[in-house]
């Protein structure tokens, strides 16, 4: 017999059909239903994080690439200055970085953080670990 509770508002004409249908055993959930569902939930969350990472990273990378193309010599000179300063007794290591470049690098760092988080969640999810916030 079914172990489902009986309805207390059954009308007389319902009783026969209810008795019949209550005898239909519930079907078991497909194997792996919950795991598949939780993986889908995780993947949606990860997709969202990858999109945010891309939104941060792409403009920053484009700007940095442009900076390298336009001011490549300045960057090379700055790196040469730093290298010479570390390999000699002099402490003068002049280089100049504009504010936009710093902002682009910061945004790239944020994008990397999002991407790393998405990767960790994805890896954790595939092993069935707890979802990070």
């Amino acid at each position, binding site marked *: 017999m079914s172990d489902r509770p009986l309805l207390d*508002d059954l009308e007389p004409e319902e009783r026969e*059909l209810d008795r019949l*249908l209550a005898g*239909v055993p*519930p079907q078991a959930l497909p194997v792996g*239903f919950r795991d598949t*569902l939780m993986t889908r939930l995780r993947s949606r969350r990860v997709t969202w994080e990858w999109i945010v990472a891309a939104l941060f990273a792409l403009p920053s990378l484009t700007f940095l690439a442009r900076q390298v193309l336009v001011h490549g010599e300045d960057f090379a000179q700055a790196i040469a200055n730093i290298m010479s300063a570390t390999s000699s007794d002099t402490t003068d290591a002049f280089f100049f970085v504009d504010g936009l470049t710093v902002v682009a690098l910061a945004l790239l760092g944020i994008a990397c953080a999002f991407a790393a988080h998405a990767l960790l969640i994805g890896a954790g999810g595939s092993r069935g670990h707890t979802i990070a916030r």
Partner: protein
Amino acid sequence: MTRTDQEAVQRCLAGDAEAFSTLVERYGGRVYNIALRITNDPDAAADCAQEAFIRAYRALHQYDPSLPLGPWLFRIATNASLNHVQRWHAHETPIGDSEFPESLEPDDAGPEPSALRREQLDEVLAAMAELPPHYRAALALRHFQQLSYQEVADSLGIPLGTVKTHLHRARAALKVRLAARAQGRTH
């Protein structure tokens, strides 16, 4: 750890997605069986149940914790299943052979009554599969899930009077189909 539905929802909203798996464990079977009775297709039912839980997860902030979670989830599952049926006409899919295992349930009267009972249940389910989807939904919620009229109304998002009308017509249509099937067997 056992916690109430509302506590699990609160934890989900606070960012603990694992708490949602508790709700999936608790309601997964019922949601799947509602979808199964509406779609008549185990694969489609699994898809609809998954979709229902994903929609529920994304809409948890809209859930009113002063109300029971079950009917809210069942409503989402019913909508997902009815949408699926309307989109893919899954109700036209002929149901296969008996969905019940050979050992349906222990029967003290021996194997013969058990086989008869299985056959009878198959007949009922086959007749039910011929009903319009919204009738199947009402019957599934009322008789398979044992919900009250008000809970069925909440789950379907329709007025109480409409639920009673649907169920009355669904029962009448089911009886007609069962009679037709019985008549078809005798000829």
